[in-house]
Structure formats: C-alpha cells, structure tokens
C-alpha cells in the first residue's frame, strides 16, 4: 500500500476528478486500499467532507440525508460490505434516492483469503436483488468512462448505481509469508 501512496494509478485520480467535478460534497467510506487515493484527496479538499463509517449501511443512510439537504454524496466500500447494506437499501428504493457507490472487489482474482470469497461472489447478485444497477470496470482504461456513466445515471437520472472495481485493477495484496 505504501507504494500506492507514492504514485497512485491514474484511474484512481480519474475517479476523484469525476466526483469533484460532479459536485460531490460528502464522501462516506469504509476504507479499502483501492479507495485510498480518493479518500486522501477528499480529506485534503476544503470543499469536500470525508465521512468514515463503522459499517457500510451507515453510508447508505448518510448519503440519503445529504441528498435531502441538497448535496451530492458518494459511498465507497469493499465488496464484503455490500452484505451489511441490504436492508438499508430499502431506503433507496422506497424514496427513490439517487445512489452512487464505488465498490472494490475481493474474492475474485488471485485472492489469498478464502473468507472474502462468499460475499465477493454474491456481491453483484445481492445488489441486483435490491434493485441496484450494477456496472463494472475490469481494466484501467475502462474506469473513467464507466464511473462517469454510472455517476450521471445516478445524479441526472435518479437511478441507484454501483460501479464494481475489479480486483485485478487493484492487484495482488502483498502478504507476509512465514515458513
């Protein structure tokens, strides 16, 4: 992760630019290495507010509160957090709040930790069962276009949208192996 701080991949800066350029004022998150650059940029920006969550469903609720108050807000999480959100997503559907979330995937590519697999495999299906539109970016050059499309569908069309960011984008997590 420390190498990411030195030079984050360009797609991570592109995500921040889309959020910033789209007028997002609040970014709620449960951190992930794949979101680390965006989170740092948000906290460094005087016009944006980073809201760290204890669990992802809080973020579903707080982005709705932001919209009630006239602000655009986005939610960042890892795929394992999607399961935590399920009932809270009723709020999105019942009130037809615009909803935009970026989700870094685990459990699908060179995954070392099998405990990530069940929720990773169920992420897309669980979201779709709750009426959320799911887009996905697999390659760095797809990220900006996919995120922008999802962002516009959410805030111009009022649709609930997530963009899944493939685990292959983030790369292998470095584990310390002991013999």
């Amino acid at each position, binding site marked *: 992760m420390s190498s990411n701080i030195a030079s984050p991949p360009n797609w991570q800066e592109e995500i921040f630019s889309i959020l910033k350029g789209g007028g997002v004022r609040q970014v709620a998150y449960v951190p992930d290495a794949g979101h680390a650059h965006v989170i740092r940029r948000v906290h460094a920006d005087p016009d944006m507010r980073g809201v760290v969550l*204890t669990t992802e469903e809080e973020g579903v609720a*707080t982005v709705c*509160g932001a919209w009630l108050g006239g*602000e655009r807000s986005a939610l960042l999480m890892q795929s394992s957090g999607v399961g935590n959100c399920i009932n809270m997503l*009723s*709020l999105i559907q019942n009130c037809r709040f615009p909803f935009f979330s970026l989700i870094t995937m685990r459990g699908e590519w060179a995954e070392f930790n099998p405990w990530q697999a069940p929720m990773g495999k169920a992420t897309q299906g669980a979201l779709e069962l709750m009426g959320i539109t799911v887009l996905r970016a697999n390659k760095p050059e797809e990220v900006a276009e996919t995120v922008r499309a999802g962002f516009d569908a959410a805030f111009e069309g009022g649709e609930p949208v997530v963009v899944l960011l493939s685990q292959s984008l983030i790369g292998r997590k470095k584990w310390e192996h002991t013999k």
Partner: protein
Amino acid sequence: MRQATAVATIDRREFVSRLLAACPQALVITGLGSSSYDVFAAGDRPENFYLWGAMGGAAVVGLGLALAQPGRSVVVITGDGEQLMGLGSLSTIGAQQPANLSIVVLDNGHFGETGMQRSHTSLGTDLSAVARGCGIGNVVEIDEMGSVDSLVQVVNSRQGCTLAQVHIRAAELPRALPPRDGVYLKNRFRATLGFEPF
C-alpha cells in the same frame, strides 16, 4: 447522574410536542416506530422526514443532512431500540460533530412496537455513556418534562453536536400514522428547502 431505580415519568407525546413547537425551524428525521408517531402527532410539516424502515439509520440520515445544511438545526427523534441497532453510527457522528445536529433518543427501555420486550437500555447498556465514549461533545440525560426548555435552547443554538437521552414512561399510546410514501416525503422535504425535483 441518574439513579438506576428512578421511575421514568415523561410522557413521550407531550415531550416531543413541546420540543417541536419551540423549534419551528428545525429539520426533523424520525426513527421508525413510535418516534415517527410522536412527531406526526405533534403536527405534520414538510420539514419532517419519517422513516418507516431502515432501522438503525435515523441518526446517520441526520448526519448527512446536518453536514449539508449547516445553517439549520437538524433534530433526529428516535427510540432506544432504533438507536441500539445503529450504535456504531454514534462513533461515526462523534468523528464529525456537526454543531447543528441533535439526536433525541426517547428511551423507555423497551421495544414498544413489537410487544414491549425489554431492550438493552434496561438490561445494562448506558446509552449516554456510549455516546460520551463515542466522542459526542454534548450528552444530556433528561428525566423531567421541565428540561425540555433546555433542550430547545440546545437545538436552536446549534452550538454543538448533542445526544439527549430522554427517559420516557413505557406506555403504549394510540398510533398516529404519518404518510409512508417515501418519494412524497423526500420531494416535499427538498421542496421546502428550495430544491426542485430533477
């Protein structure tokens, strides 16, 4: 400090009614269950957003709203059961501390909507201590109806993020049912703040 043996006497409907009558500018989020009925019974207004679900979410809806509307008082009115489902949200709010956010927990120590089973606040959890431990700057416990006036001042002054634990009598009151069409509630709330539908 409140004695564990103290008998709660506050009537929830009267407390909420007096609070909101004195905070006419406040933006109000309600937690599902009896708190929504209390707020509706005090008088429906477009600045009320009633949750009929999303249990555990009321305080954090209030957080997003308070950050977006720093010039308005935001009041979350919820119950002990609803807040207990989102205890972590008190940490999240403690990390942000919007000065215009007041969370009012109507605590009867029971799940009133589902048959008056005892809740954790009558089984050992000290909600005010939890809120203080989460870093919420101003935590008050209220045992007497007369204290509503000091809470009114807190809400209207917007001087600090507050959690008020209001010890109410455990009583089942007639239901007063607010609108449950979420799109309607959302649109009229935003309209009163001057935001158009897209």
